[in-house]
């Protein structure tokens, strides 16, 4: 096995370990957050049996109950989507950091690495700092 092959294997190993470490860290933080929250989400989700028990029999009240139930489900879906966006952003940032690290090992130019940093900064500005909200009416993000 020559030096080039060793270098390629080492590069691949660094990428896999960095990404694996990032994902493992994200999962560990997610679990830690769940433990600290003491199953708040699980507690909020009503079971089918609870829903049937709580369902009123009158037609008008039933319609109102269904409306409230749908609103609650919609709220849950929005919350899940928001959390999922955060996970995707973390994965992209981890991937770009790994690319940056390997690019350094391969002797990539300073300009190329600066461009990678610009892309990372752009992702944080848009998805975490909500820079576009500056031009929105003053509602929530």
């Amino acid at each position, binding site marked *: 096995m020559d030096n080039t092959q060793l270098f390629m294997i080492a590069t691949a190993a660094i990428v896999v370990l*960095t990404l694996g*470490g*990032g994902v493992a*860290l*994200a999962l560990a*933080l997610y679990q*830690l*957050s769940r433990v*600290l*929250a*003491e199953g*708040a*989400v699980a507690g909020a989700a009503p079971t089918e049996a609870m829903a049937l028990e709580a369902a009123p029999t009158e037609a008008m009240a039933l319609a109102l109950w269904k409306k409230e139930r749908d609103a609650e489900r919609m*709220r849950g879906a*929005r*919350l899940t989507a*928001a*959390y999922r966006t*955060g*996970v995707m*952003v*973390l994965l992209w*940032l*981890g991937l770009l*950091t790994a690319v*940056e*690290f390997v*690019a*350094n090992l391969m002797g990539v130019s*300073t300009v190329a*690495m*600066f461009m*990678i*940093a610009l892309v*990372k*900064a752009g992702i*944080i*500005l848009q*998805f*975490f*700092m*909500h*820079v576009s*909200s*500056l031009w929105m*009416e*003053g*509602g*929530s*993000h």
Partner: protein
Amino acid sequence: MSAVTTTLAEYREQLKNNRLGLWFFFLSEAFLFTGLLAARFYLWGNTRPDLDQGLGLVVTVILLASSFTMNRAETGIVHDDRERFLSNLLVTAGLGVLFLIGVVGFEWQGHIRPGDGAFGAVLYGMTGMHALHVLSGVVFILIIWNNGRNGHYSGERHWGVEACAIYWHYVDVVWVFFYPAIYLMGHVVH
């Protein structure tokens, strides 16, 4: 601010001004950090000191992860998910402390000292100024956490949380440029 503003409409109008003011503050901060980056490229050129690459990567991943948990905290309060808001704030503060330990406790104990010419001056200047911002961010987060624990903030009114989160992400953005400038760009001079 709640003592001044009474209705949600007034609060939202005030929010626009608050956001603009915060971003002007970031603009002024950008001059400071750009000055430090300019000093690095002027004094180091296409070289860099021999630093621990593994440590640089680890503290970078820690700071990126802290931005993720801060985003979860902000998302939590926006959706009135208070438990997750509070727990993620604490995790973010913890990761910030870990970052500080990595930089101050390990990187600063390496072979380069502040008096070691251009390498020492720039390295300590850049990491020191950034660490100071991380430290102030951790204090900010703990204040927000304490307020949140005492029932402040809601899905409609959480400017304090938003400002804290954006400040923390800004500190992360600064490191996004500092990390390659300190650890990756240029060839190593022993």
